[in-house]
């Protein structure tokens, strides 16, 4: 790996370090601040489980931000992460409420605006909805857990001294779960923007298992968070001593509730289970652990009736609400400015241009999709740079519906791929399976201009490459198939576009 790549990753690592040194306090703050658990114990457990969560559970939430904007040049990723880090640092210094997630979202939107990429409004609205849902869910979980814990303890009549010992163990276990969830959920903030431009190749670890390029990226990010955890003592003591005056059992409830919220928004398995129950799918994206904690504390307050409600600092809630708007706006502005600076002063490529061309093949494909293309003829054959410009052209020349417009943009995006004997030799056949690999090998010598062409070619060759009809039961299968397509498209990518 080039040194320059490490330099570019440094902003993500800095963001990871800052996340570790701040958010670890949400997990172990009360336990350490109240001296129920020593700082060393807390830091070691937190560091180990953050890394495990990032590497083995990070895939779900990290892709959530990718849908908002796939930053496709590593210099761009560097600036997006740096902008988010600067926003978090600056707003913290000014005493304003800030969430890393919201800063990263703003920074990605800044990149989209700078590069002329489209911001998926559907994904954005889902992300914004989770900012509201996250503290609310934290409060609901905390209220239920707290009531259950109080009832359970009243019934069990555990001696105070034994309860103290059990609470310590419960705090450590909840902290481990919290750290795993934090790693799994928030690695998307730290390394999510580097996913599309990951500099690593898949790594075989002693023939035991393979660490994918993304997992290696997440391992690095996880280690950065883990290092940050060891710098979190002052914040932990502050959190434990002043912000949350709750009992140790209350502290356990807060940590559990927060961990559950983070886990929900990062677990692929849980999401599939929820969809399997016939409930609507929710997005897997990084959420703010601080806001989940505040929600949980409020949840405990609400269980104590009017006396509890009176203690709630409603101003804190108002500040969180204002942060939902101010943080992304500030981060987007900083990101836009920084990207401009890096591109024009340091002559770095902060995004790869994406070209769009409405070729005959694309028009034919759109007709096949049931889209009327008569008005699009004037655009035929034109090479248009950037999704925003192509969308403007589409709107100028054709009155497509929103959904048809998205299909047209997706179909016209040029992505050059070539299946050569050289890159076939390094194909991960174990990952694809024999039948699918055979179909891929049959493509040898062919090249493609669009993603959908590559997909069509494979589905014609083998039924194993066909997606199943969408249903809760086939969701997993189709998602995995989609990941295989992405792997192949990356593998056969041709630079000469």
């Amino acid at each position: 790996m080039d040194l320059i790549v490490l330099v570019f990753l440094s902003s993500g690592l800095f963001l990871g370090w800052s996340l570790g040194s701040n958010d670890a306090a949400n997990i172990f703050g009360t336990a350490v601040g109240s001296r129920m658990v020593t700082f060393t114990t807390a830091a070691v457990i937190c560091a180990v489980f953050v890394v495990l969560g990032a590497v083995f559970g990070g895939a779900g939430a990290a892709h959530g931000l990718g849908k908002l904007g796939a930053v496709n040049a590593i210099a761009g990723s560097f600036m997006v992460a740096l902008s988010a880090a600067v926003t978090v640092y600056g707003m913290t210094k000014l005493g304003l409420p800030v969430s890393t997630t919201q800063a990263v979202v703003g920074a990605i939107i800044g990149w989209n605006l700078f590069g002329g990429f489209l911001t998926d409004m559907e994904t954005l609205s889902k992300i914004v909805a989770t900012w509201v849902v996250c503290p609310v869910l934290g409060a609901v979980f905390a209220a239920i857990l707290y009531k259950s814990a109080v009832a359970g303890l009243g019934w069990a009549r555990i001696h105070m001294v034994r309860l103290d010992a059990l609470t310590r163990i419960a705090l450590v276990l909840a902290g481990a779960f919290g750290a795993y969830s934090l790693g799994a959920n928030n690695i998307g903030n730290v390394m999510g923007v580097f996913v599309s431009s990951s500099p690593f190749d898949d790594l075989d670890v002693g023939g035991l298992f393979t660490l994918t390029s993304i997992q290696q990226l997440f391992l690095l990010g996880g280690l950065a968070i883990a290092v940050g955890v060891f710098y979190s003592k002052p914040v932990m003591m502050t959190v434990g001593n002043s912000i949350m005056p709750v009992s140790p059992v209350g502290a356990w409830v807060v940590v559990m509730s927060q961990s559950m919220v983070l886990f929900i928004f990062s677990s692929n398995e849980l999401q599939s289970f929820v969809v399997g129950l016939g409930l609507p799918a929710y997005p897997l994206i990084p959420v703010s652990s601080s806001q989940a904690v505040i929600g949980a504390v409020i949840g405990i307050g609400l269980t104590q009736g009017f006396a509890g409600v009176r203690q709630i600092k409603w101003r804190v809630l108002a500040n969180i609400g204002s942060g939902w708007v101010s943080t992304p706006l500030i981060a987007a502005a900083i990101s836009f400015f920084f990207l401009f600076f890096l591109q024009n002063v340091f002559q770095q490529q902060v995004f790869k241009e994406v070209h769009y061309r409405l070729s005959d093949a694309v028009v034919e494909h759109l007709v096949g999709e049931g889209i009327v293309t008569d008005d699009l003829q004037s655009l035929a054959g034109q090479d248009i740079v950037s999704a925003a410009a192509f969308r403007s052209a589409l709107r100028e020349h054709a009155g497509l519906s929103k959904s048809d417009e998205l299909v047209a943009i997706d179909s016209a995006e040029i992505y050059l791929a070539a299946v050569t004997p050289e890159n076939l030799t390094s194909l991960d056949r174990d990952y694809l399976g024999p039948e699918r690999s055979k179909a891929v090998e049959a493509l040898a010598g062919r090249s493609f201009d669009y993603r959908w062409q590559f997909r069509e070619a494979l589905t014609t060759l083998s039924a194993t490459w066909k997606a199943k009809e969408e249903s809760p039961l086939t969701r997993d299968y189709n998602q995995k198939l989609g990941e295989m397509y992405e792997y192949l498209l990356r593998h056969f990518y041709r630079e000469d576009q």
Partner: protein
Amino acid sequence: MVNILPFKKTARLVSEIDEFIDKVSEAQMVLERSLYHYFEHGPDEELDQKVEQIMGIETRADELRRSVTTIMYTEMLMPDTRGDVLSLLGEVDTTLDECVHLLISLSMERPGVTGEYVDGFRTIISDAGKAVQAMLQGVRAYFKEPHTVRDHVHKISFHDQEATLVALRTGRAIFDSDMPLVDKRESRDWLVGIRNLASHASDVGDQLAIFAVKRSI
């Protein structure tokens, strides 16, 4: 030091706290029996044995309290409530000291309480004893079922008021009598001394109620 599995020390601490409360309860019962015995039979050999018995109890209780304090600090147990627990155990220990002090004083001073006032003394001893026992039950409840502490505090308060009323009534009767002033003052001191057991139990009860509320937050 990694301090997440202090189960061994926990079991020891639970047993020592329980034994400490047992010892204070035992001391109160020894005092009560000794007083009854004294009013019935006057000073005799059994009273000396009771003094030795209560001093043995005090020695053991002091050992236990020292051990509990040491474990709680060295193992950093219950950091949020440690102060309350140690303060509570200190107050309970004061009750024990009062019992010991009363019995030793009885053995040394041998007050001359005459027949017609013995019933009054008996009632105060009984009420003060009940107040102390209710206090000890409250302390045990604080460790296991803090929400029931109020029930015990209520009982402590009742017995304290009863003991005060009877002490007042008996004291007035003594001072209205033809008894020499020196005997009147001696009897008054004993009335107040025994009643103070109930009064102190009531103060501990007030503290207990606050500590129990703190535990529930």
